[in-house]
C-alpha cells in the first residue's frame, strides 16, 4: 500500500522474541475489546461501564473471583489436553468428549461404592478421591487413545475422529444420566445422582485442590518438553514425522501416547468441574455448556503457542471473561450470551493477529516512481 512517498510493506519475520509475542497478544486483546464495544454500543450499553463490570466481577468480586478461578482450572486442563498432542503436530479437538467420559468414569467409581443409593454414605476420601482421579484419567485416556491409535496405525485424520467422538460421548452421557440411565438421579430431573459429601474435594477457601494439579502440570509439561527423552521424541515427531522416523522414533507410538496423555488431562477437567467445584457435585443437566467451554482450550493452546507456562495467563483471562460476561448479561438484561460472544470475538482477533507472528508491517520511504518496464534508450 502506498501513502504519498511512503509505502507500507509486509515483511517476513526471521525471529520472534518472547517479548514481541506477548505484546502482539496484548494488542490483540485490546483490539478485540475495542471491537466488542461496538456491540455494546448497538445494545445501548456504555462499553467502558460494561468492561468495568466484567473485569471487576471476574477478578475483584468475592463471589466472582472463585468462579473465575474454577473456570481457569478447567480451561487450563483442557488447554494442556490440547497442547500435548499439539507439540506432536496433532490436533486434539476431542477434549469435550474426553472430559464427558472422564466425568462418567468418576461417577462410575461412586456408583461402585454404592453412592447412588444413599448420599449420606460415609466413604473414605483418602481412598475414593484418588480412585476417582484415576478413573477420570483412564476414561479420558481411553477415548483419546482411539484417535491416537487410528492416527498412528492407519493415518486417519485425528481432527475428524476426535470431533466425531465428541458427539458419541455427548449422547452416551445423556443416555446414562437421563430417565432410566444407570447414573440417573433418583429424582429424575435429567441429571446424574449426587456425590456424597464425604468425598467432596478438599478446598482452599472456595477453590478445590485441582488447582495444584493444574499448576503442577504447567511445570511438569515444561520439564517434559524441555528436558526429557519423551518430550524430545514428541517434539521431533511434531516438527517432522519423516525425520522422526529416520531417528528411530515410532510413528505409531507417539500419536497413541500423546492422545492418551491429552485425554487423561481432559478427563481431569471433567473430574474438576463435575466432582470438585463447590456447588456442582453431579453431572448437571447443562453439561453441554462445559463441553463447549472446553473448546476454548484449543484457543488458549494456540495463543500460548504450545507453551504450558504462557497458557496460564491466557486461560485466566478467558475464564474471567466468560464469568464476567455471564454476569453482565444478567445485570444489564442483554438478549444474547455475552460470555460466548465476547470469547468468540477475542478468539477470532487473536487468531487473526497470529499474522503478526510471521510478518511485520514496515513503513518505508519509496524512491520516485519507477520508470515503466520496457525499452529505454
Amino acid at each position, binding site marked *: 500500500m502506498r501513502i504519498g512517498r511512503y509505502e507500507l510493506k509486509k515483511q517476513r519475520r*526471521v525471529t520472534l522474541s518472547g517479548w514481541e509475542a506477548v505484546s502482539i497478544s496484548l494488542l490483540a486483546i485490546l483490539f478485540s475489546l475495542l471491537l466488542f464495544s461496538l456491540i455494546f454500543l448497538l445494545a445501548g450499553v456504555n462499553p467502558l461501564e460494561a468492561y468495568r463490570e466484567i473485569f471487576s466481577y471476574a477478578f475483584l468480586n468475592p463471589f466472582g473471583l472463585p468462579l473465575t478461578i474454577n473456570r481457569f482450572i478447567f480451561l487450563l486442563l483442557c488447554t494442556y489436553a490440547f497442547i500435548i498432542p499439539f507439540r506432536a503436530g496433532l490436533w486434539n479437538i476431542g477434549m469435550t468428549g474426553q472430559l464427558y467420559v472422564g466425568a462418567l468414569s468418576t461417577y462410575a467409581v461412586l456408583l461402585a461404592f454404592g453412592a447412588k443409593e444413599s448420599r449420606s454414605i460415609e466413604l473414605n476420601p483418602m481412598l475414593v478421591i484418588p480412585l476417582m482421579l484415576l478413573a477420570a484419567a483412564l476414561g479420558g485416556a481411553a477415548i483419546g487413545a482411539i484417535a491416537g491409535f487410528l492416527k498412528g496405525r492407519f493415518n486417519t485424520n485425528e481432527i475428524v475422529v476426535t470431533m466425531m467422538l465428541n458427539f458419541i460421548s455427548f449422547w452416551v452421557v445423556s443416555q446414562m444420566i437421563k430417565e432410566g440411565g444407570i447414573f440417573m438421579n433418583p429424582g429424575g430431573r435429567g441429571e446424574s445422582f449426587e456425590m456424597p459429601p464425604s468425598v467432596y474435594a478438599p478446598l482452599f477457601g472456595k477453590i478445590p485442590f485441582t488447582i495444584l494439579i493444574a499448576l503442577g502440570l504447567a511445570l511438569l509439561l515444561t520439564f517434559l518438553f524441555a528436558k526429557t*527423552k519423551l518430550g524430545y521424541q514428541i517434539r521431533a515427531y511434531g516438527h517432522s514425522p519423516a525425520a522422526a522416523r529416520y531417528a*528411530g522414533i*515410532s510413528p505409531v507410538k507417539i500419536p497413541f501416547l500423546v492422545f492418551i496423555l491429552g485425554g487423561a488431562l481432559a478427563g481431569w477437567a471433567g473430574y474438576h468441574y463435575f466432582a470438585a467445584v463447590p456447588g456442582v457435585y453431579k453431572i448437571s443437566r447443562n453439561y453441554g455448556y462445559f463441553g463447549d467451554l472446553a473448546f476454548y482450550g484449543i484457543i488458549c493452546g494456540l495463543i500460548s503457542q504450545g507453551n504450558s507456562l504462557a497458557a496460564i495467563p491466557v486461560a485466566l483471562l478467558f475464564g474471567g471473561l466468560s464469568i464476567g460476561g455471564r454476569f453482565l448479561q444478567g445485570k444489564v438484561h442483554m438478549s444474547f450470551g455475552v460470555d460466548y460472544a465476547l470469547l468468540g470475538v477475542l478468539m477470532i482477533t487473536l487468531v487473526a493477529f497470529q499474522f503478526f507472528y510471521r510478518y511485520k508491517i514496515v513503513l518505508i520511504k519509496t524512491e520516485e516512481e519507477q520508470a515503466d*518496464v*520496457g*525499452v529505454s534508450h
Partner: protein
Amino acid sequence: MPKGLLDNIKHGDTVLEARGITKRFPGVVANDRIDFEMKAGEIHAILGENGAGKTTLMNILFGLYQPDEGQIFIGGQEVKLRSPLDAIDLGIGMVHQNRKLVSAHTVLENIILGHPRAGAILNIKETSREIEELCARYGFEIDLKAKVWQLSEGEKQVVEILKALYRGAKILILDEPTSALAPPETEKLLNSIQAMAQDDLAIVPFITHKLPIVLAISDRVTVLRRGRVTARLETKHATEQGLAKEMVGREVLFQIERVQVEPGEPILEVQNLSALSNKGFMALKGVSFTVREGEIFGIAGVSGNGQQELAEVLAGLRRAEGGKVLLDGVDITYAPTLERWQRGMGYIPSERVDVGSIGDFSLTENVAMNYYFDPKFVHYGILDYGGLRQLTEELIAEYDVMAPGPDTVAKNLSGGNLQKMILARVLSRKPRLVVANLPTQGLDVGAIEFVRTRLMEAKKEGAAILLISEDLDEVLSLSDWVAPIYEGEFMDIIPGEKADREYVGALMAGSRQVEGKA
C-alpha cells in the same frame, strides 16, 4: 514489451549483455557488480559453488528477480525484465533443475501448454510436425504421445528444452543440465547442445561441479565466487585444477586416494532383497551382496532404479517384500529402525532437509537425533542437553561446519554444511556399517571433497560402507566393489580396480550389449 530484438542475429553477435548486476538480500550481496556477455552460437558455462550467486544471476536474467543495480541488454537494447513472461517474449528460455511439467499430460501437451498460439483450438498435427522437426534437427529422441510421468529425468529435461525452443528461445539457460543423467544420456544431451549452438543459439549452462563437462563443450567460462566474477576465460585456456581453484578459492583434491584396507568380517549381508516403491510396483527385485569391514561397496545408478528403496529397506523405513538382511550375522530384515542404529548401523539419507534434519531444531537437537537413545546421554528418561551441546560444539569444530554455534537452527545452514553436520552426527557414533545415500548430491566441490575424505577415513577405521550414488565417477573412484543398478537389479558386481567407466555406464543405462567386456 518489444519483440524480435533477436530476430536478425548472426553468429558471433552479442545477444545478451549484463553490466554491473548487483543484488542484495538481507545480510548478503548475492551478486556483486557482475558483468556477463553472451554471443550467438556460444556455449558459455557459469561455474560456482552453492551460494556463489549463480541462481540469483539466473533468476535475474529470467526476470524472476529485479537487480538492485546494473543493466541488461538484449540484442544491444536495454531492457527491464519484470517477470519470466517478459524474458520468454524476448527469447530467453530456461530449464530448471526441478522440472515444472504437468505429469499427467503428454509430452506434446506440455510443450504447447502456455504457448500463445495454443489458443482455444489446437492444431495437433501441425504442431507435432514442427516439434518433430526440432527433435530431428537437434537429435532429441522422445515420444510426443508419452505421458510425462512415464519419462526419465533426462527425457523430462528434453521436454523442457523443447518447450523453450518451441516458444522461440534464442538464449537457453540450463540449470545443472547433467546432474540427474546417466553417462549415455549425458553424452546425447551434450551433442544436442552443440547442435543447437551451431544454429546460433546462445546457451548458458550453470554447473557446480562437473568440470570435465565444462571443459568438453563450452566455448567460454565465467567463474563466480561469493557473488563476484573471479575468472572469465576461453575454455581452451582452462584446466580442471585451475577452474576448481577459482571456484573454491584454494587447491582441491579431485581424486581421493583409494586406500586399500584388508577386508575383514562380513558386516552387511543382503540376500535376494526386494521391495515395493511408493507407487506399488516392485522397485527392488532381489539383490544380493555382502559388504565387509573396511570395504566400500558402491551402487551406481540413475535415480529411480531402486536405490532409494534399497536404502530405506536397510534403514527399516520401508518394508522388505522378500529376502534377508543380516547385520553382523543377526537377521534384521524386519527390525525396527531404532534397533538398527543401536546395533551399529548409520544412515545418511538422501533427503537431507526433509528426513536427515529438522529445520526448526537447533544443531544440538539435530545431533540428538542419533543420540537421544544413547545411555551416555539419557539418565532416567532425562536427556543430557548440556552434554549434547558440548558434543555438537566438538563436531562443528572437527567437521569444519560453518555455523555460529550449536544453538543455530538447522534451516539456517547451507546444504554443504548441513550435510557435514549429518555426516558428523552419524560417523561420530563409530558405526559398523554406514549406508550413504547420495552423500554428495547437490554439494559444491569443497564439500564433496570433504564428504568423500571422511567416508574414506571411516573405511580406514574398519567401517563397512554402502555408497549409493548417481555420480559414476564418485562410485568408481571410491569403491572396492561396483554394482551398477538398473530397474531394481544389479547388472553386475565388479571389483573396483577392474571397473571400466564405459562398461559400468552402459550397464547403469540398462544396456547389456557390452557384456563380457570387463
